Each structure stands twice: as C-alpha cells, then as structure tokens.
C-alpha cells in the first residue's frame, strides 16, 4: 500500500493533502484491485470524465503545470502527495496519454493559444486525447508516414490511414503526424496537427486482436479538415515534434500513465504469485519436482520484471539513469511475458490448451499465442533503442534517410 510520507509535509503541503483526501473521498469511485486501467467502454469513460472534472473544479488537476496555462504551479512533492492520497481511488486513466504524451509535446512546440486550449480542455475532463501515429504501411519506421496533408487556404485536408491507436473510439482529439512535402527527405516533409476526431471523413474502426479482444483502432482519414491554427509547430517541423512526443511516450510508459500511483500502490516487497500456486494446485502438480522447477522460475520471472521496472522507473525519475533506459523496462516486460508463458504452459501441459469453465486456465495457452506486444513499439524497436541510445552502439544505416521521400520504396497503403 501507499508509503505514507505525511510526516515530511510542511504546513501548505499538509493543507493540500487534507484537501486532496477530502475531495477524493467525496468525488472519486474506489479503485477495484485488478481492474484494467485503460478500458474503453462508455460507462468507464463517462465516469473518468466526471472524475477529472471534479478534480479540476476542486483545484487538484494539472498540479505541476504553470499557472498561466491553467495549472496549479505547484511542486513535484505536491503531485506525489496527491498520488499517495489517491491510491484507494480509480483515477481517470483514460486521460493518461493526454497528460503524459500530448501535454509535454504541446507545451514544447505549441502556440500560447494552443497551450491554453489543450491544457484546459484536457484537465477539465472535456477532451480525451489520443495519438494518431503509426500507419498500416509503416511499421516501426515512424518517419515514413504516408498520410498526406494538403493546404487549402486557412485549413489543411488530411487523407490516409493510422493504426494501433489507443482509445480512438472515445477520444475527442488526436495529435497526428502527416506528410506535407513528399519531394524532400522523409524527416523533412512532415508536419504535426491537432485533429478533431468527431468530424466527417474520420472513420474509426476497432481492431479485433487474435485473442478476440479489442484494444486498438484503425482510422481512415478522407479529407479530414484541420484549421491551420491547429497545426503544431512549423510546416516541415513534424519530426522534431514527433521526437518530443516519442520521448514523452517512452518516459510516460516507464513512469506509468499516472506517474507515481503504480509505485505507491504496489507492495515494495517481492510476493510469490498465488495465481500460479492455484494453477499448479488445480493441475495437481504441486508434488512434482519438475513442475516445481517451472513454478519456481515463474516466481523469479515475476519478481525480476517487477523490480527491474521499478528500478528503471526510479532511475529515470531521479536521473540516475538516462531516459534511454526506459526501453530496458519494455524489453524486460516482453521477455518476461514470453518466458512466463512458456513456463506455465509447460507446467500445466495439456490443461493449457483447453478452457476450464469458471477458471482462467485457458489463458495459459492463450498467453503462448499472444506474447507479442506492440505498445511502446515492437520488440525490434526496443532492441534498437537499447543498443543505439542506451549502449551507444552505431546506429543502423538508413538508406532511405537522405533520399526524397517519393523516391523511397514503401508499402502500399492497405485499403
């Protein structure tokens, strides 16, 4: 549970803590342990919008943001206090991408007017934001976007397709990278836009994943209109903006979308998963030394994943590790997921490939099928990032880097 640091509060901090405690108790729903944080159903989204609005109205939102943009202008310590108090409540998770990715990007590259509008719209619970970044044709090559933006007077028209968007079904706005000049090298011809998702020409389709769940969307943009005042950064400066965005995404994933809350909620000690024990007991293998080897290693995998992510998060936050280290957490999580699925599958043998009513044994085999993660970039992106940014090995040659983009071999956009 939360590490109570209230003994260190000064008077103002104490007052802030008590206000937060009262408002949270009155306005926010309780946290249900084990509940998925990012769940995109109408009811949850409505609840989260209400929660965010309540925090805003009570003066508990945008704690560390500058006052001139509607923030409270308080210290990181105040934010930590808020999260210490908030551990028992469901926070408005659906705004996490906005807070962690969109805000830093807009504050770094936006106009005064954009900063005002985005901060207020988001922190008041009105606007949920998403990222329109990857494209079906593009894979890991984010600078290779095919979505075109053409200027018509005071507005831009965007046409193309984006994919792997979290929350597009419920979001109001998205930041969207588009190509404004295909005749220059790929990084130079990009521009970033703030796009209204609720408009004609914007077709949003949930993607069914191989396990039948829906977590992401694909969007088709057909002459979607963006006023020029919603262009973020200069024309042709999109890659610089996207770099801020990607860095913010990496840091955010490393810290957690609601920074601090995960650390505060989680036990600092290593625990041995009772789920695995139940699995082993129900499979009847608790007395089998070979199965116990698999179980024991699964405990290790869990523990190492947890403490590595915690160490990296803490290191990046304290600047003991460079921001590039955050890819270590992503990769460790991928590797642990793969290994865990192999261990538990081996432990339950044939029981892993059938569904036992009322239990989740089926997930044992399903986890073997669905080890792949794309959140935060593919495995390959993480491996490149660690070796190049974190270990300082030479960057992979990119022969498409200096060629006019319209001369680069690309994939056809999928229909």
């Amino acid at each position: 549970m939360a590490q109570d640091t209230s003994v260190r509060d000064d008077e103002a901090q104490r007052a802030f803590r008590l206000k937060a405690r009262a408002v949270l108790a009155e306005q926010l729903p309780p946290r249900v342990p084990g509940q998925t944080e990012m769940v995109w159903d109408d009811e949850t989204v409505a609840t989260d919008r209400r929660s965010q609005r309540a925090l805003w109205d009570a003066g508990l939102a945008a704690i560390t943001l500058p006052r001139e943009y509607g923030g409270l202008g308080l210290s990181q310590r105040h934010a930590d206090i808020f999260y210490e108090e908030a551990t028992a409540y469901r926070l408005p998770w659906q705004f996490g991408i906005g807070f962690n990715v969109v805000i830093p990007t807009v504050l770094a590259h936006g106009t005064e007017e954009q900063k005002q509008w985005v901060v207020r719209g988001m922190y008041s619970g009105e606007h949920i934001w998403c990222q329109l970044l990857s494209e079906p044709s593009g894979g890991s090559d984010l600078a290779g976007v095919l979505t075109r933006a053409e200027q018509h007077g005071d507005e831009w028209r965007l046409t193309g397709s984006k994919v792997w968007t979290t929350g597009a079904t419920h979001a109001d706005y998205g930041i969207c990278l588009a190509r404004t000049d295909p005749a220059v090298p790929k990084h130079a011809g990009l521009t970033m836009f703030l796009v209204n998702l609720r408009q004609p020409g914007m077709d949003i389709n949930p993607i069914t994943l191989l396990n039948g769940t829906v977590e992401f969307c694909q969007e088709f943009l057909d002459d979607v209109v963006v006023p020029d005042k919603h262009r973020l950064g200069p024309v042709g400066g999109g890659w610089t903006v996207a770099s801020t965005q990607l860095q913010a995404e990496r840091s955010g994933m490393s810290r957690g979308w609601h920074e601090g809350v995960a650390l505060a909620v989680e036990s600092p000690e290593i625990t041995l998963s009772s789920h695995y024990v139940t699995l082993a007991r129900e499979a009847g293998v608790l007395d089998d030394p070979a199965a116990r080897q698999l179980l024991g290693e699964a405990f290790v995998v869990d523990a190492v994943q947890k403490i590595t992510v915690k160490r990296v998060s803490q290191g990046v936050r304290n600047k003991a590790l460079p921001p590039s280290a955050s890819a270590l957490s992503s990769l460790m999580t991928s590797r642990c997921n793969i290994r865990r699925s192999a261990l538990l599958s081996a432990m339950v043998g044939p029981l892993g490939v059938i569904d036992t009513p009322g239990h989740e044994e089926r997930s044992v085999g399903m986890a073997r099928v669905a080890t792949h993660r794309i959140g935060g970039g593919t495995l390959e992106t993480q491996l490149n990032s660690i070796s190049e940014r974190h270990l300082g090995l030479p960057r992979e040659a990119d022969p498409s880097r200096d060629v006019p983009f319209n001369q680069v071999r690309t994939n056809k956009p999928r229909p």
Partner: protein
Amino acid sequence: MDIDLTDDQRMLQDTTRRFLEDRSPVTALRKIADNKLGLDRAIWRECAEQGWVALFVPEAFGGFSESAQGVLDAAIIAEETGRVVFSGPLLPTCVAAFAIAQAGSDAQREALLPGLAAGETVAAWCLSGPGVRAGIEPGGVIATRDGDGFVLNGTAGFVQDAADADLLLVTAVDGANNNGAGVSQFVIPAGTAGITLAPRNALDLGRRLADVRFDGVRLGADALLGTAGEAAAMVERQLQLALVLQSAETVGVTDRALEFTLDYMKQRMAFGRPIGSFQALKHRVADHATQLEGAKAAVAHAARAVHEGAADAAIAVSVAKSQSGRWGTEIIRDCLQLHGGIGMTWEHDIHFYLRRAVSNEALWGAPPVHHERLCRLAGL
C-alpha cells in the same frame, strides 16, 4: 519427410497439397472459427476418398495397405494437413483403422474397416485421462469383467472429435478382477448407453476436444479388441503412429508459417528496404530454419523407424515429438512477432498456425512427458 522422396511420394505430396488448397484451405478453418462449426463430414469423406485412411486398411476391406507405405505416406499427408491447419479427424481415424486392421477379429474388420476407409465412419481415440498427466499413458478408464463381457468406468480426456465420432477406440486399464495391471482395448459405437460427453473449449480453433465419461458402460465380449489385458504393445504401436502423424502435422504447420513469413520479410518495406534485409531478423529466421530442419529430420527418421518397426522406433517418436513440439511453438511465435502489428490481429491467419502448434505441443504428451519417457526407454 525423407530428404529424397520417391516419385510416388512426391506425387502423393503434390496431389494432397492441391486437394487441400482447393477443398480445405485456411479460409475453411476461419469459417469454422467464426461460426463455431463442428466437423465437416462431407469434406472428410472427400479426404478419405483420397485414400488417407485406406493406407492402413487391407484391400479386402476397402483399403490398400498392402500396396502402400502406410506410415510413410500418412506422414506425408499429415504434413500437408498441417500446412493448411486442417481440422478433420485424420489422426484418430487412422489410428483406429490401424488398430482394428492389426488386432481386430474378422467380424470387427469386416464391419468397421470399409466405413473408416470410405470416410463414412469417424473414429475417436480414448487413450488417457483428463488430467495434467494425460497424453501417452492409459489410465482414465477402468475395465472390469462382467460375465462374458466388460463394464467401463471413468473418464477419457482430450478426445478429438468425440462429439462427431461414430466409433470409439477405448483404451482401458484393467480393474482388479481383470488380469491385474494389464491394458485392454474396446471398439464400441459412440452412442453406447452410459457414455456422456463434456466438450471443452480448445485453444486450437480447428480441434474439437471433449472429455468422454463412462458410467457403468456394459459391453459384450465382441467389443473387445485383441486379447483382454494384453493390449499394451498394440497401444504403444498406436501411440507411435499417432506421434508420427502429429509431429508431421506440426512440421507442416511450422514449415508453412515460416514460408509465408519469409515471403512477408522479402516484400514488407521499412526504412526504404525489405525488413528481410535487417540482419537481426535474418539471424532469427536462420535459427528457425535450422531447428525446423531438425524437426523434419526427426519426423522423417521416426516415420521410417515406425514403418519398419526398427529397434529405435519408440525413441524416435519421442525425439520427433519433443523437437517438433518445442520448436513449432517457438518458431511460429517468433514468426508472429516478425509480422509486426498485423500478426496480432484476428484477420491474419498466423494465429491459427500458432494455436495448432501450441496445442500439438501439449497433446499426446508435452515434451517433458517425452523426456521422461526417453529416460525410461534408456532403462532408467
């Protein structure tokens, strides 16, 4: 399969591949999965007309086992079924035909083999129990003497196509009054009184699995296959055949998945070049090709050893199962990864391949079961 197929074998391979691509491509499986359909008996009859079961049936009963290289040819067919993640009852029906042809009475052979060979009769094989140690050991069903006949009690687990089967090949351990620790086999109509089915949702969307429960199922002496209490050696031979078919299928599944992954890597562009030009990805698939070659070698060796009744047949099938099972999953898992985001979607076929590989790895004894078996075969 053998590295140098005979002309006949190559023709069998080609014919089977074309037949399956035409009559039962992966889109057929997608339709089954989307609509939760059961066994398509019409397709299975067509398969049988190709001679798939006839390989194990003597000519006198509608087959051509005398003229064919039963196990070797069946392994070629099984590998092809893997390439399209075929969903029919090849393994249990072939095992049943083989068992009845080898151990059945004249009456049983006459009554049952023609239907099996023609694809009119579908068989399911009840070997082991429903628990974690299921796979290669009898034990779920107990047979006790009852006058001239027998009574069966217990549960068989992971029984493929039990719900659609006409015939059950039941492997039972003998109760105390029945020859002690022996094993007996019975061939009985699926509708025999006292049998109930509990279907299980399977990870492999093309495999229908069920628990089959026997509650005081009374059988006449004519249901017995071979000699009471002395079926263990026959069961071992059936298991060997099943493992060859299963491992060959896994090789086909893996081979095809790696094949379309390589195609994808040659076509898919990133950073202005095909992703197959990235060395890290190239090295991963080089390892996959190598382990797959190992699985092919192991299955070819096992098929030949079982076909010829070689001294190392029991060892060879466990080696083939371990290698194909472990690496099938591992290779296709990484092939899915190599597809990037599209590989994670329901609309891409690769998850059907991976589901089959994971399922095959776990059924008929996961690799750890075969590692323990190899220790026992080494006399330990």
